[in-house]
């Protein structure tokens, strides 16, 4: 089990330098990194058994919110509470990005007055929150999901439609 984890991190660190130049977009960098490299190399030890998709929850309107229903395929892999906590945190982060309030109105008005040229210099609030989300997902993957043989994909890479969870078959040392 530890060899499995160590290998993931080794490959991650090795490839940071490799990919830094090729993928300049910071938002997608980390996740594409995790995606391609970790998937490529994990395949040597573990194959992708299946993928689970957590769909969007539209009961509150068009805001970005994911269903917290626990998928049956993950029952043997992860704690229900842990999963729900991750999804709930993601939902809260997206709600914060799309929140209508004094701050967002101010940003909108300022942008309009400068004919939207201000966004050449600074990021929108939404983009800042998306970066936080990417960091959170990477952190969750490292701490919680990778040790369990799972991988979360940042929803922004799937057009904010689904949270894709890749389940890896544990071939290395026995099965859980």
């Amino acid at each position: 089990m530890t060899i499995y984890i160590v290998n993931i991190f080794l490959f991650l660190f090795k490839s940071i330098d490799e990919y830094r130049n090729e993928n300049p977009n910071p938002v997608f960098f980390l996740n594409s990194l995790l995606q391609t490299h970790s998937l490529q190399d994990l395949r040597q030890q573990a194959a992708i058994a299946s993928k689970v998709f957590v769909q969007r929850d539209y009961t509150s309107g068009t805001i970005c919110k994911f269903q917290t229903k626990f998928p049956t395929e993950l029952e043997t892999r992860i704690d229900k509470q842990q999963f729900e906590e991750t999804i709930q945190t993601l939902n809260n982060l997206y709600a914060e990005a799309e929140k209508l309030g004094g701050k967002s109105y101010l940003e909108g008005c300022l942008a309009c007055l400068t004919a939207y040229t201000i966004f050449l210099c600074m990021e929108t609030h939404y983009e800042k929150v998306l970066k936080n989300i990417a960091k959170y997902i990477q952190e969750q993957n490292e701490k919680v999901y990778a040790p369990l043989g799972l991988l979360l994909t940042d929803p922004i890479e799937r057009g904010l439609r689904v949270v894709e969870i890749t389940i890896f078959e544990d071939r290395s040392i026995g099965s859980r």
Partner: protein
Amino acid sequence: MHLGADEPPQECQYTQICTRGSPHMKKRRKWRVFPGRNKFFCDGRVMMARQSGVFYLTLLLIMVTSGLFFAFDCPFLASNLTPAIPVIGGVLFFFVMGMLFRASFSDPGILPRATPDEAADLERQIDTSNGQTTAGYRPPPRTREVLINGQAVKLKYCFTCKIFRPPRASHCSLCDNCVERFDHHCPWVGNCVGKRNYRFFYLFILSLSLLTLFIFAFVITHVILRSNRKGFLDALKESPVVVCFFSVWSIVGLSGFHTYLISSNQTTNEDIKGSWSTKRGKDNYNPYSYGSIITNCCAALCGPLPPSLIDRRGYIQPDTPQPVPLSNGTSVYTTPQMHSHMCDQYQCIQSTKFVLQAAATPLLHSEPVILAGGPHLPGKTSLAGHCGPLVPVQTSIPSSMPGLSCGGELLALRDVDAHCRHHHFTSPDETPSPPQPPMPPMPLMPPIPCATHVSHIHPTQLYDPASQDSLHEDSVRGLVKLSSV
């Protein structure tokens, strides 16, 4: 010329000749393999719909009218009244142009198509919910019912993008993309108007109406002042009044209409279909409205701007499956390495088809050749600008027809028929894009007796010189490839 299987894997696109044979893996940006019908400029920074002829007309009209105003009226007005007039006019003009470019060149809120795994997962879910169906039997249109703030809303399945469309999203048949909070496809702006560029579009028409009113008012002032010295008709000859006069009414009308839509938080689509009208039912209300007019306006204009979901300028990762747009409109997912292997065989087949197509072109009349029947539903016939059925309803053909004619009737009843007249004019004028060779567009395939402008466009599309050229070009390529095999 011939690509062997032992060559290093390289990214191949089916719409181009894979004869470059570069030894190194050249990084390509994702916009090059974008499956929708969009045009990209400045290396993916700018995107527009494929048919952008009317956009250039808009640009021309605005610039010519403003140019004439600044050249002929401003000197007189600045010296006789106040120099603030040209200054204000200038500021308004730059604002209008800025908003126009922003509305035209940005991503309206396109939803990326589903990855093959997602699509497969959805299919599985749908099959289990529908029960087992026999092979060959076409299941009924897929819908999901969702309760949003107490109102039941149906989510439709998009066969092209292979996703369940979020509420308020719609598939634009002209751009072949699902767009979030789809308002309409505006030919004048040369792009769809959706979640991400609605505010720019609104500010554009608002500032344009202010500019037109401004120019109109001061041109009249100029004419009056001059006619005190000369005759009225002579003075009139020196001013660009005519263009202003017609555009004032249509643009002001359109601004008024969109102001109403924003205050009630509806899209043009929903308003025309009467989705939230009380006529449908006593309990029918708009679940997306925030309650107050001010909140609705603020949310639409000053709310947070969501980022683009399609990563246009990202690089294609070597092992990530990318959608390869096939000429029949559907897409196939292959990794770039698989591309080169599949490329050869596919090219062989394609080239043969190109040659046959080219040979058969003069004989083509009303039967476009379908190369590979995709599950492309008809109902993409919303060529009546955006006053017709704005949502290409993914149901059977007949329902799209009443939509087209209903659109016309509904429009006749509307007070703001100015804007509709406006847009109706664009449909016959709108030069249809050259069909993606070798496919004359499938949407026109189902024989629709009514909509005259649909059939009107049909033969022109086939005899469109631009499409002939591209077809010709491809047949030549095909011949070259065949000879190399």
